[in-house]
């Protein structure tokens, strides 16, 4: 099929950037969206032109590296799907597609469609773990954990840290991302010792990074490729208030 693409091009972090129009032909419906961009880039490189820079790595929906807003939707039209697993079956011959990077103050553009998400790492560094040194563990079955709690912890822990939740939010809030890690440990016994400090310091770092506040639109939940539930945000808010009230 033949497509018209409008792609955000921006030389570097300082450049103002703008949309550039491209035509691609001979796109297979079996190819993935990123493979369609590979074909475009091959053509540009053959002509000695700078290819479109975009992030991707595993290309199987789990590393969280890919990050495109397609026709206004983070990761494109399919639900519960990262852009690397979006396939061109989703489009028709002659379609026009607009491709942009994640847009958020806390995710500055580095080049074209690539953004800097190190703010996410810094939030995790503020407390997204159980403080246990290697070698300290007791036998794993000494700590029975009911299946429902283990399943719920997995549901939260499945977050791939892609940032689609931020990109989808009109306030560029990172609440869903932060609540996924806070929630994973809140439902597990291993997470209880540091529960208060964790939620307080991760939220503090989130605010420091400049992410916006949540106004309960749940665009994040709709955009999340791993379908992380907005319930975790409610849990986190409750945890945060409790922890604030009981910590001097």
């Amino acid at each position, binding site marked *: 099929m033949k497509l018209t693409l409008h792609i955000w091009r921006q030389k*570097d972090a300082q450049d103002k950037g703008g949309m550039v129009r491209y035509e691609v032909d001979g796109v*297979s419906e*079996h*190819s993935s969206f990123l493979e369609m961009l*590979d074909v475009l*880039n*091959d053509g540009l*490189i*053959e002509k*000695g*032109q*700078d*290819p479109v*820079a975009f992030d*991707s*790595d*595993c*290309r*199987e*929906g*789990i*590393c*969280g*590296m890919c990050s495109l807003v397609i026709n206004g939707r983070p990761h494109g039209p399919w639900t519960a799907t990262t852009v690397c*697993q*979006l*396939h061109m079956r989703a489009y028709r011959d002659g379609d026009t597609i607009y491709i942009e990077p994640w847009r958020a103050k806390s995710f500055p553009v*580095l080049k074209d469609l*690539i953004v*800097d*998400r*190190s703010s996410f*790492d810094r939030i*995790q*560094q503020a407390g997204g*773990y*159980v*403080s*246990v040194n*290697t*070698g*300290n563990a007791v*036998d*794993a*079955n000494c*700590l*029975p*954990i*009911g*299946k429902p709690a*283990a399943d719920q*912890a*997995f549901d939260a*822990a*499945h977050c791939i*840290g892609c940032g689609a939740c931020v990109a989808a939010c009109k306030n560029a809030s990172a609440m869903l991302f932060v609540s996924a890690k806070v929630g*994973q440990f809140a439902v*597990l016994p*291993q*997470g209880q010792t540091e529960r208060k400090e964790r939620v307080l310091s991760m939220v503090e770092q989130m605010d420091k990074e400049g992410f916006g506040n949540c106004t309960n639109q749940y665009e994040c939940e709709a955009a999340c490729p791993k379908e992380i539930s907005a319930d975790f945000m409610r849990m986190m808010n409750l945890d945060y208030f409790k922890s604030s009230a009981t910590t001097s």
Partner: protein
Amino acid sequence: MTLDSKVPSGPLADKWDKHRFDLKLVNPANKRKFRVLIVGSGLAGASAAASLAELGYDVDCFCYQDSPRRAHSIAAQGGINASKNYQNDGDSDFRLFYDTIKGGDFRSREANVYRLAQVSTHIIDQCVAQGVPFAREYGGTLANRSFGGVLVSRTFYARGATGQQLLLGAYGALNRQIHAGKVTMHNRCEMLDLVLVDGHARGIITRDMVTGKIERWAGDAVVLGTGGYGNIFFLSTNAVGCNVTASFRAYKRGAYMANPCFTQIHPTCIPVAGEHQSKLTLMSESLRNDGRIWVPKKKKDTRPAPSIPEDERDYYLERIYPTFGNLVPRDIASRAAKNVCDDGYGIGMSGLGVYLDFADAIQRLGRDVISQRYGNLFDMYERITGEDPYKVPMRIYPASHYTMGGLWVDYNLMSNIPGLHVIGEANFSDHGANRLGASALMQGLADGYFVLPYTIGNYFATEHQEQVTTDHPAFGEVEAEVKGQIDRLLAVKGKRTPASFHKELGKLMWDHCGMSRNAKGLEQVLQRIPELRQEFWENVSVTGAGMELNQCLERAGRVADFLEFGEVMAHDALGRGESCGAHLREEYVSEDGEAKRDDDNYCYVAAWEYQGDGKEPALHKEELVFENVELTTRSYK
């Protein structure tokens, strides 16, 4: 140079304990004076970085991704083995050891594999303590499942995302040390060369992938946890960024490359859909627990799968291997799939595919149970193929997945270059000629959490080196070479994309150094690669500049290294005149088509030493000694 494996003496089960006592320790107050440079942040790299920092060492960790959480360990689906014997089904350290060494077709070191089995149980404990949400039974205990090549249930898992959960556990431990200031993390930063001072690994040269800046890093030891080289085949289940560069540059600086021809072709991947394809997607081996593999009994049968009656289907694994059935090891399942397709029974448009059918399991267990076990894999399959595996069988075909070969290391995980340690998939050590399922995660974490933290201290305590800074002339020399290579790539200004060279190399390797090999094909590879390399350096198009974010340049550098590494692989495959594990030489097969091992002549690790560009590498042999197992013919019938 003789290869000293440094395997301790004494009974197998006591070796590691004895060795840990014999290893020299570093005074806790002195540990902060040692700086360790760790390249890679996957299961091996992240767990090593966190554990070494906890001990007090100063750590710098480097990854090419934008966050350490994205290393490709994240994509491992199925599970991680441990000899817990929680299922009371007869498991033990010795059984895990035996299964692994037999699965590797007796081409790995007994002592290393036994140690792996011994520490496997600690890994599960550690990960649970970190809050890794493994699958559980209703009573709250950990759940297990079985995996290919074994008859016990010892695999721990977290739905179909075990690698993700284990990596995020290690990432959490790493983050804690970053927060504490003990680890400095360098994201989007690619190692381009290794620096030796007085024969010891003392630093690396990196490229900042955002600014293009070439930087020097000095340390007291270098650790490579840089993964495998499966992307040599272009199409593989690896992430598109996975590459051989760090390992290969170390090889060119004198580190030996061991058994590079041992590459695992995984049986259950989604078949190739067309020329545009950039990668292949694995469908976890765990699916073989409930899925049945078959092809039609009639050649080129184009009827839809559900309408082919039961008696016109050939469940060939169950037929040929009645004991293990669909759970035979990966190399055997892959080869069997290739054989039925080569004979014309393959399914799908290309004829390169077999069915993996869940109809029986859904009928027996119900759709809900199957969805609980494999839901995310079924969803992924449907997204990629547009077909619903609850209704029609999956189509699968083998693809490059893991590389058992890698840099040679001794029992301490140190290469022949003092100070250069290699962990995880990047080393050659534990899987022999074939890796069993759910053992890559085990090895990565064993190396990082429970082996390297002990052994690296012994190096610091026994081989004292003077402090060096990046002002040492050795850094200047290597940096100049790195910059020279980048300038050369940018100066070619040819017509072909780096990817097109990669694809051509990949096809060549897949055809002649893939699931089966013969001398004629391998000689063809050795003739063709230099020609392809020459064309690359005359006609590659690398756009943009060095001092900027330049993905085309990154790609070109990686392809340049693959174009040299392919030759080492082919030399190894040609030199190994036997079939063993994943390495099948067509000249050496038994009458019923199984691999024919030659223990009299090839019971060794082939370690290759770089001899200069365009020159054949030199072979060094580490003879493998088996004192605790009998070298039997591997039979899964």
